[in-house]
């Protein structure tokens, strides 16, 4: 178990009691440099400080609230993670009244399996099915996407290879990327070039990525300094052939050669050898599939081949870190997590629970603040859904109908589960605006329109009402000084700058505004600032 050594937070000027928990009060005197004993203050996973607990909940849930913070401080990080592993899994329902997007926000705001949902949400942005192409169906894709979302949450703490196998057989994915009814032959027996859509995205987005990676997440380069492709066009075609012959399940089993079963969402797809190319194909790592084998055996060979490729571990590990903790993890952080992906300690690879635990318990994620070496580049811009749920949960939100929240998220570029394409809402490699070194994936959907949408959501939820959502502004004190302190300690885990406090204090104390608007105004201003918008 790792211990976290962090310096005591030293204030610039004389304010007392920056953070005080049930377990320990870190009091500091006015403007004194820390003594040697102060510097050695240890923060363990078992006894997180309040800022540490808040940061942990920002990384591992859809947002902290007072109860959850107190709980984590009391049981410790490790136990909190164990509890989340054991928490009962929330399922989507195929109801006509609440869309999947609405349910997503209802679950995220209120259900107890926060970490599982958070990881499933991250996985849904890596292994993507979008509801958009299903709009023509009678139920607009509700049934299909529900199976896909449930599959992700089912395996969020499971085995990565199993996840990849099941997603390959999932009918919603089959419809989305043409893995369903990708026949190798026409009914008359003519050979036909198989559709390459699923094979390509499986390699490019779900498992390997475009370029070979070192275990620290950096790209391998050749002698000329150029990145190296992790697969070729020929291999895409080889996988396309290998994965032919699958159609939707039906009571009558497989149809005739070259024919398709009607769409069906409740069962995995079935392999039909009549429509499958039985020839041997050369896959990755110089492995050949067995000549003459049927659809099911070839699919298994393909899944084994891909998931045994060394690129999977860093490719997936780094993205999970980006979704949960920070867009620019240090190489060492990525390397430590990749190692756990490769071997969870029992020689199993792809153990997602172990990987998630490694991400959250790592020194780089833990502590009252980010590690000094990472500080200026630490964090990630809250994506729209995380921004919305964070605000709602912080105010003890009750979401009886998440439709409006989902619509707000869509105006910010993240309607759930409706990314514009298989490339998700934003690419993991998107650069930070103005930087040639740092990444800022969530900034890909950050522009003038979505900026205004973020602000206008806050106006709506804080000063008016969002349909289907009740928030409680009374979690804040009534007096201006109490409000400022709450915003600093609870919303910003103690990082509010002097200048921000001055500006917000002046605004909420302004005599021209009604006093009952002070809480909403303080929240609005603070939640809009960079200090809040970037989760750190």
């Amino acid at each position, binding site marked *: 178990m790792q211990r976290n050594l962090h310096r005591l937070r030293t204030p610039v000027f004389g304010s007392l009691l920056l953070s005080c928990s049930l377990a320990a009060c870190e009091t500091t005197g006015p403007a004194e440099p820390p003594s040697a004993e102060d510097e050695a203050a240890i923060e363990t996973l078992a006894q997180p400080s309040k800022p540490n607990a808040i940061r942990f909940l920002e990384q591992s849930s859809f947002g902290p609230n007072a109860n959850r913070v107190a709980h984590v401080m009391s049981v410790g990080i490790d136990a909190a993670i164990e509890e989340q592993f054991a928490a009962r899994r929330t399922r989507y329902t195929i109801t006509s009244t609440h869309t999947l997007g609405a349910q997503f926000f209802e679950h995220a705001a209120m259900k107890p399996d926060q970490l599982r949902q958070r990881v499933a949400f991250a996985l849904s942005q890596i292994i993507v099915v979008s509801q958009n192409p299903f709009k023509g169906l009678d139920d607009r894709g509700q049934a299909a996407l529900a199976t896909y979302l449930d599959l992700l949450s089912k395996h969020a703490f499971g085995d990565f290879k199993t996840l990849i196998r099941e997603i390959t057989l999932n009918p919603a994915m089959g419809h989305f990327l043409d893995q369903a009814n990708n026949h190798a032959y026409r009914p008359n027996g003519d050979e036909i070039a198989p559709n390459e859509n699923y094979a390509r995205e499986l390699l490019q987005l779900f498992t390997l990525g475009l370029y070979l990676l070192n275990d620290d997440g950096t790209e391998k380069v050749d002698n000329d300094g150029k990145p190296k492709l992790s697969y070729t066009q020929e291999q895409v075609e080889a996988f396309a052939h290998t994965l032919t012959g699958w159609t939707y399940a039906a009571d009558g089993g497989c149809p005739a050669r070259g024919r398709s079963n009607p769409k069906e969402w409740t069962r995995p797809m079935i392999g039909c050898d009549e429509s499958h190319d039985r020839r041997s194909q050369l896959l990755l790592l110089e492995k050949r599939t067995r000549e003459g084998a049927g659809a099911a055996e070839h699919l298994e060979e393909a899944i084994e081949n891909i998931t045994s490729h060394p690129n999977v571990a860093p490719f997936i590990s780094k993205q999970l870190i980006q979704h949960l903790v920070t867009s620019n993890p240090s190489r060492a952080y990525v390397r430590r997590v990749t190692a756990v992906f490769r071997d969870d300690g029992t020689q199993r690879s792809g153990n997602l629970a172990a990987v998630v635990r490694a991400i959250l318990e790592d020194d780089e994620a833990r502590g009252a603040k980010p590690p000094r070496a990472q500080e200026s580049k630490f964090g990630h811009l809250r994506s729209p859904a995380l921004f919305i749920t964070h605000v709602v949960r912080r105010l003890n939100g009750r979401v009886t109908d998440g439709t409006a929240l989902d619509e707000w998220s869509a105006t910010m570029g993240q309607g759930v589960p409706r990314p514009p394409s298989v490339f998700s809402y934003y690419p993991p490699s998107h650069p930070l605006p103005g930087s040639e070194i740092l990444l800022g994936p969530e900034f890909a959907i950050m522009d003038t*329109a979505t900026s205004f949408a973020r602000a206008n959501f806050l106006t709506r939820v804080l000063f008016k009402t969002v349909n289907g959502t009740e928030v409680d502004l009374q979690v804040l004190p009534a007096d201006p000084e109490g409000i400022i302190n709450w915003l600093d300690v609870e919303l910003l885990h103690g990082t509010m700058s002097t200048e921000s406090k001055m500006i917000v204090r002046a605004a909420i104390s302004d005599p021209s505004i009604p006093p009952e608007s002070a809480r909403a105004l303080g929240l609005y201003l603070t939640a809009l600032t960079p200090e809040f918008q970037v989760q750190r």
Partner: protein
Amino acid sequence: MNLSRRSFLKKSGIFGFGAAAASIAQSSALEKMAFAAPGDPYRALVGVFLLGGNDANNLLIPATDDGYAKYSQVRNDTNIGIPQDDLVKLNPRNMPLASFGLHPKLTELGRIFNEDRKLALVCNVGPLVEPTTIQQVRAGTAVLPDNLMSHPDQQDAWVSAIPDPFREGGRFTGWGGRMADKIRLLNDPSTYPVSTYFSGRSLFTVGQVERALVVPFDGKLELASSGKASVNRVRDEATQALFDQTGTSELGEAYRGVFGGALANAGARKAAIAANPLPPAIAELFPPTTLGIQLLRIAEEIVAGASGLALSRQLFSAGLGGFDTHNDELTAHDELYGQIDAAFAAFYKAIADLNELITRGQLPGITRPLEVTLFTMSDFARTFSPNSGGGTDHAWGSHMMVLGSRVRGGALYGTFPDLELGGDDDIGEEGRWLPSTSSDQYANTLAAWFGITDPNDVDAIFPKLESFEVKTLNFMRP
């Protein structure tokens, strides 16, 4: 957001709303009249990105018996062939009558091509790293664009004019944005963004300095009211003050730049549109479709830009999705091309009607003609040979449309490919055409018309163009 712009606006006392913004816009117009040469036209480029890779093999089809026979040999006994009789016949300049045809849904565009001569078709265009021959491709010696046939890579290749990011060290800007960086001098002293983005591929409008104003389809870019005027005032002043600070988090500062810039520009835009609205009769021309709504908004922005914001150059980005027709291509195209025909024709008429009003002095605030050129882009074309799903897969060289009063229309440009599987233009056996025109040659033609003529600027905006002898095609009047 760049600091000089922010301090300019701060000194003007602008918080982004109301009267302050209007007076700034007005004084800019006065200053502009002193700077602009008499008769300098207003010019706008409207890029419409067809997202997903448009199968242009069903957009533009040979219509002579011999030409059509080649097309039908591959496509007609599958479920994606277009019957010869259904084609919208074209009479391209210097070619026999009815030698080509457009997809059956493009009736209005066909009329604009044949009668007005204001639509041009540019054949077999695609990203190229350097002049490339089919022999080189077959020998494996060609330097190909990186990740050919991957959607995001080719969308970015088109809009960035950098088809080989490995060698170039990445791509962080688009040719539209780099063009905006240079052309903004023609809008001086305004600091309003050159580009406005509704949809498409967002990298297109990213420049070194210039960033597009991103506007939602409803055209509204403003801070909502809290319900109390006093709260709004205090709220918005405090917001501005908070965004005027600086912090130490790099991601935080990037966020600050985006949000702060949004506040400043939105105010100026709102005031300009309010003072110079699009005449209702012209607004009514536009169909309420995804593309129609974007082009309506763009027409609004053009009127506001040319008058209240006193701009001379604007770049717009629109987009339409759904072109990744791996299945059911005929059905998809009926809807998509129908939408394109109606929306493009409406936009063309709207600009013509606006110019009519301007000539008669009936559009307040604008005395110069509006010269607007609409052009398409797309990730790639698709395999001429269909797949097993009634659709087509990813390919390369594609046909583009250019529409506007300054277009030398009614003609085909570039070289139409030989529709032979495994033939002289096919990089394989499925009908993936090696482009005969580079996307840079196409784009540079538009840029030259827009005002980019200095060879150093051309080099910076189109780094690959250097190795091509022909820098522009001839489809624009100067």
